[in-house]
């Protein structure tokens, strides 16, 4: 488990570096769909998203003048936000599935204990 945690931490650092530093070097050419739309003449039907005024719109942090820093910070924020949301969702699903009497799951009683001990602490919503 500790080794898995190490792996995940290293992976998160790699993702932060890609989004925070590497993305500066990404191609700024239009992507496949944008290029097709321009070439075929339907790009004008695109409308601005309702979130176009978001402080992180188009992967740059509003108020930061340096483009490289602005893009890097936006990338870092995005990675952390996705990690939090996706990690939270999958952890919540895992706990609940381990909590049900799915005796068929051979993997471990350990995690079931884990879950029951944590149960009262979180998920006050008590769905299910």
């Amino acid at each position, binding site marked *: 488990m500790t080794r898995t945690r190490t792996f995940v931490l290293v992976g998160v650092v790699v993702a932060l570096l890609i989004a925070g530093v590497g993305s500066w070097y*990404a191609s700024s050419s239009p992507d496949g769909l944008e290029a097709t739309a321009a070439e075929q003449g339907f790009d004008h039907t695109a409308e601005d998203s309702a979130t176009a005024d978001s402080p992180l719109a188009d992967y740059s942090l509003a108020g930061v003048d340096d483009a490289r820093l602005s893009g890097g910070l936006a990338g870092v924020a995005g990675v952390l936000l996705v990690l939090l949301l996706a990690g939270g*969702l*999958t952890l919540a699903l895992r706990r609940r599935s381990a909590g049900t009497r799915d005796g068929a799951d051979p993997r471990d009683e350990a995690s079931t204990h884990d879950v029951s001990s944590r149960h009262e602490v979180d998920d006050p919503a008590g769905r299910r």
Partner: protein
Amino acid sequence: MHVPDGYLDAATTAGTAAVAAAGVALALRGARRELDERTAPMAGLTAAFVFAVQMMNFPVAYGTSGHLIGGALTAVLVGPWTAVLCMTVVLLVQALVFADGGLTAVGTNVTLMGLVAVGVGYGAFRLLRAVLPAGRTGLLAAAGVGAFLSVPVAALVFVGLFGLGGVADVSLGSVAVAMGGVHLLIGLGEAAITVAVLGAVLAVRPDLVRGARHLQRATALAPRSETAGRPAAPAAPAPVEAR
């Protein structure tokens, strides 16, 4: 391939939103079977990683760029249902926070890059995994082909939606040729990134690749893992060897 608002009419947009909602609902049920104490943290990491790599547009021909979708990669790493959830989180964050992909079009994007890319990528991976020789090379080849196919197929599904409800009056055939052509090239990049990332994870922690669990059980990866010094994992394969 993030579809902006406005390309598709309201009915088609609503239809894809319904498809996406149904797919995510199924995934919420299916993912419970996939998520254990190993895949849950891996799923969070994989989603964050896909978000990061999606920022890395790489150049393809004609002054055009593309980026990883990540449907096949995610499905092989954490399982297909969990992958649908991971992709949905990435696409929601992109649409809501980064204005990447339309807001009303988020169902379209979840359909294309969540459901279609994961479904095609993982489906092809499973088919090929069954017929290719077992082992790392076969596994990586299966994942690479799945990743490659997922991109042009998702692009052609967009063309199909455009045929149903595209707002602009343009020739569908030439849209199909243009979309299909450029996304064949982008698919090569998708395959390369998928194989590179999977290969790296298989080299250090093959036990964390859900799509390689059958290899673990068959101990096909064991010799390499043992030389790599992996104290935690041998617990699982042992009973199989004893048999």
